[in-house]
């Protein structure tokens, strides 16, 4: 009944775990600088002219960048439906907050400059700031909650039963994760601003970027120390059939202190990830000092890659641990789509992702160069 699939189920699950990482990192690098620039808007721009320049550094590209988020959501739905169902409903009100921010973004960009009244513009500037600041923070809070474990279990029909609430999400460790995420994306946004602007905005971006990169190092280190000092991770205890049907109830798991560090003991090469997080932020600090905008951007991107990989590798093979019933935790091996769906989706990705990357590169090439007040005056379509 099932057509021939040349890769076994276990391999495909691992590939999709990697692709999930690629999508999340791509989202954080591509849309991350949009979020960071928006979060910096009130700080780096002091008058309407400067604010327009800042908004237009990302104006032509942010829409394409946001698709990484939409694609990430779609890919989780298609490749990890159990993860999609459990996390999106479990984090319901937190997702609402993100959605409000995401609704404000497109209209903020598009509507702000359609009218000249200062109050109108100030309102949308505020909207754009919220639309950048809130998602940058909340995505990190969500990761913090994943590391802590989420209070869910399944009933006999595999329906998710969730026993948490919104304020339960705002515990200290999750807030710390949120700040890590905010700091790294603000640093990334500052790098982009340096590449696309000059003069006063460039200088302010350099200063705020330095603070943000420094904060990233300190906060990321704090999170690491917290995890090392008796933070409860999760570990699979019963043997898992890595190629079996996707049913999270077929294994046993426990919560135990230090479990999130176990992978680094078993596979020391994984230390590359946290090192990249620190190294990227440190190189960014250096680049800000030496006014090397392009190098700063590559460095903050490296930091993002390292920090997100650290979270992913620490919890592997978990995707979403359950604090209520560790046995019900979702893992790479028991929460995926069927063998055939993973294969079809892989083929679609292999065909379309290179095309997407090619035209995205083309667009950035066409839109290269600094944004200036003169140029904005000439383009009636500028934001």
């Amino acid at each position, binding site marked *: 009944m099932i057509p021939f699939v040349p890769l076994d189920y276990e391999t495909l699950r691992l590939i999709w775990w990697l692709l999930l990482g690629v999508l999340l990192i791509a989202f954080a690098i591509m849309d991350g600088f949009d979020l960071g620039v928006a979060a910096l808007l009130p700080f780096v721009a002091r008058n309407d002219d400067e604010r327009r320049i800042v908004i237009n550094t990302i104006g032509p590209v942010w829409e394409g960048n946001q698709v990484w988020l939409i694609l990430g959501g779609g890919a989780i739905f298609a490749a990890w*439906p159990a993860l999609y169902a459990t996390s999106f409903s479990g984090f319901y009100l937190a997702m609402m907050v993100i959605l409000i921010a995401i609704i404000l973004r497109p209209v903020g960009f598009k509507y702000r400059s359609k009218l000249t009244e200062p109050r109108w513009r100030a309102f949308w500037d505020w909207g754009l700031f919220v639309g950048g600041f809130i998602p940058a923070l909340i995505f990190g809070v969500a990761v913090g909650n994943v590391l802590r474990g989420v209070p869910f279990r399944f009933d006999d029909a595999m329906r998710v039963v969730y026993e948490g609430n919104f304020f339960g999400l705002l515990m200290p460790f999750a807030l710390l994760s949120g700040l890590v995420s905010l700091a790294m994306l603000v640093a990334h946004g500052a790098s982009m601003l340096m590449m696309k602007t000059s003069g006063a905005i460039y200088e302010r971006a350099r200063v705020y970027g330095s603070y943000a990169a420094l904060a990233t190092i300190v906060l990321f280190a704090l999170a690491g120390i917290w995890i090392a000092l008796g933070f409860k991770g999760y570990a699979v205890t019963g043997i898992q059939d890595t190629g079996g049907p996707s049913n999270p109830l077929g294994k046993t798991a426990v919560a135990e202190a230090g479990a999130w560090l176990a992978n680094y003991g078993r596979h020391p090469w994984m230390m590359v990830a946290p090192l990249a997080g620190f190294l990227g932020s440190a190189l960014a600090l250096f680049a800000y000092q030496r006014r090397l905008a392009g190098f700063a951007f590559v460095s903050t991107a490296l930091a993002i890659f390292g920090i997100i990989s650290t979270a992913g590798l620490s919890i592997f093979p978990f995707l979403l641990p359950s604090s209520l019933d560790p046995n019900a935790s979702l893992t790479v091996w028991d929460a995926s789509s069927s063998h055939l769906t993973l294969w079809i989706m892989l083929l679609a990705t292999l065909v*379309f992702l290179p095309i997407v990357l090619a035209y995205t590169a083309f667009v950035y090439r066409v839109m290269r160069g600094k944004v200036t007040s003169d140029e904005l005056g000439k383009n009636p*379509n500028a934001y």
Partner: protein
Amino acid sequence: MFDIDVVTLSRLQFAATAMYHFLFVPLTLGLSFLLAIMESVYVMTGREIWRRMTMFWGTLFGINFAMGVATGVVMEFQFGMNWSYYSHYVGDIFGAPLAIEGLMAFFLEATFIGMFFFGWDRLSKVGHLIVTWLVAFGANFSALWILIANGWMQNPVGAIFNPDTMRMEIADFAAVIFNPVAQAKFVHTVSAGYVTGAIFVMAVSAWYLLKGRHIEIAKRSMAVAASFGLAASLSVVVLGDESGYLATENQKMKVAAMEAMWHTEPAPAAINLIAFPDSAKQENSFAISIPYVLGIIGTRSLTQELPGIVNLVEDAKVRIRNGIAAYVALQKVRSDKTDTEARATFDKSWRDLGYGLLVKLYRPDIENATEADIAKAAELTIPDVPLMFWAFRVMVGLGFYFIGFFAVAFWVASRHKLGEKRWMLWVAVFSIPLPWVAVEVGWLVAEAGRQPWSIEGVLPTFYAASGLTVADLVISLGIFLLIYSSLAVVEIYLMLHAIRKGPAAPERPEPQGAGVLPAAVAAEPQIK
């Protein structure tokens, strides 16, 4: 176990999001092609006025597109947020077209839309034209993949239920893509979008002509929109009819409800032109019907019968009993994989499992269902008949109105009399809300018509919701309604502002008295 208020509120929230999203999508679909056509004329003739037209309609396109994006992301996330059991149950199949939509279509549209606005001076003429066409194709590919996903909800082909994972899994991806229901829905829906774009351009241009402003741009825009709209309105009706015909194959209840046909009539069935359906008595208190027509539309024959609502309820009872048997067998298979007898029972009747689940609304332990429970569950399969009947008639009536409207407009335009027929211009102005009425009631027919199912015959809507609290939903619904209605006001205000401002002034003088049809313009000597 089933909190109906949560289900009702979740349905309200999803309906609000979807209907709100669908205020913007059809205009995006239609305007994107109209922009591409106008810019093509610009590139072919080199006449600056066509560039100004493209930029002017592009501004309105951009205001509308922003809202389409903002509401589209909400749609995608709501599947997981509000319908988590649905996401678990069918994510293996439904998630794939959604993800491919992002990968193949939305990326294209969203990446190039920035270039459309910011690339005018950075790209060659042909380069920019290609960008505009890519935006239009991206929008339409998006619709294709979304409607493949939606078509699967109406006609769930190519999937089987896996007892090990307790969900539907894919068996034949080609069947999902080439699902005839999905293909018919796609062409019907995008055509409706083209009609929306065409009426929008007609109405705004007509208003300019009535006010005597931007005459050259308005005449040309109207001529393009009239020809595009005529083709689109013809296809929306023809392809809508095809959609209805396909529904008679797999959604007999939907068709019967659309026609308020309570009892099976001898073939060929008459169509009820007007009727007052009475759901409590299960009959129409008044009806005017035309013989033969429904039989021909629904079955393309004079001999095939179309079953009535009451008869379909009887069929549902049989399927519910089967479904209960499948459910009982499923429980046995899950506790003991070696139970081959139970497995055989399940394999024979799993296609009715969804019907068995309908009983869960009345009795969680469905294996002990009484005849009364089964009868109540069977009654549940009837959608809201008066709503379906009237929504369908409004949609079809408007479809025919659009054909008439565009035929007249096209005739007037091709005789170069657009500026003279003021009645025609007023009709165009007042037609502006009609395509939105048509697409929203069309959406009602398609979606309310498949209730009580979230996946036709497979997963009842009430069973698909997330385990949220009423408070969660009241908060989120309240916030959505507040934001949506404020933004709708802002959007309309900005649209009117941009329309009042009109197209930018020409950079060099335009020659007077030029022809208004694209073909006529293309034949003129180039001024550049």
